[in-house]
């Protein structure tokens, strides 16, 4: 079974500063995807960034980037130039494919606060 661990229940960052959210996972699969989702109070999960396990290059999406360490099974999210709108719950998620299913397994989340 796949597990995803987020060890930081809450993080705080000042506006314009940089913050890193941690995520580790456990799997025996070799081909999979990793995601970071943002969940604001509206409850809707919004995709922030995705990483294919076969790609060595770390994914980047504007102010968001990841540090993917496949051997260590680590997948951290870096948010640069933090903005007030970044405040939300952030979930790390793992996805693999069995031929009939491609379900996501989520971590327990990190609540990010952004202060002035």
């Amino acid at each position, binding site marked *: 079974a796949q597990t*995803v661990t987020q060890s930081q229940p809450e993080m705080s960052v000042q506006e314009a500063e940089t913050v890193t959210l941690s995520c580790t996972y456990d799997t025996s699969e070799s081909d999979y*995807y990793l995601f970071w*989702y943002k969940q604001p109070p*509206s*409850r*809707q*999960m*919004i*995709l922030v960034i*995705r990483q294919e396990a076969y790609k060595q290059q770390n994914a980047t999406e504007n102010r968001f980037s990841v540090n993917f360490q496949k051997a260590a099974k680590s997948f951290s999210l870096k948010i640069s130039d933090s903005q007030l709108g970044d405040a939300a719950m952030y*979930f790390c*998620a793992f996805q693999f*494919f069995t031929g*009939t*299913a*491609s*379900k*996501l*397994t*989520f*971590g*327990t*989340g990190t609540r990010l606060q952004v202060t002035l």
Partner: protein
Amino acid sequence: GAGVSQTPSNKVTEKGKYVELRCDPISGHTALYWYRQSLGQGPEFLIYFQGTGAADDSGLPNDRFFAVRPEGSVSTLKIQRTERGDSAVYLCASSLTGYTGELFFGEGSRLTVL
């Protein structure tokens, strides 16, 4: 529609009652997922549809939970004899295909069982 639509947004019911939650996915998306998110937790997988069939229902907690997608678009999650432990946000997501596509989530249905 433009996004995944879920109704009702909030539902309060009494223990033992029957509840239906509806999900209207993005038009043309063949894959549909139901997740349950308890307070302070990440979403947990319930069931996955590819077209009209349930390709994976391994996350349904017991036989009180059932989901259908009769025409391959709208899906209904049905909960019989609700219990207080069923209180959670039920999230629906759809994807163009079931394999490599991004999942698009709705805003969820918050179920409260008194």
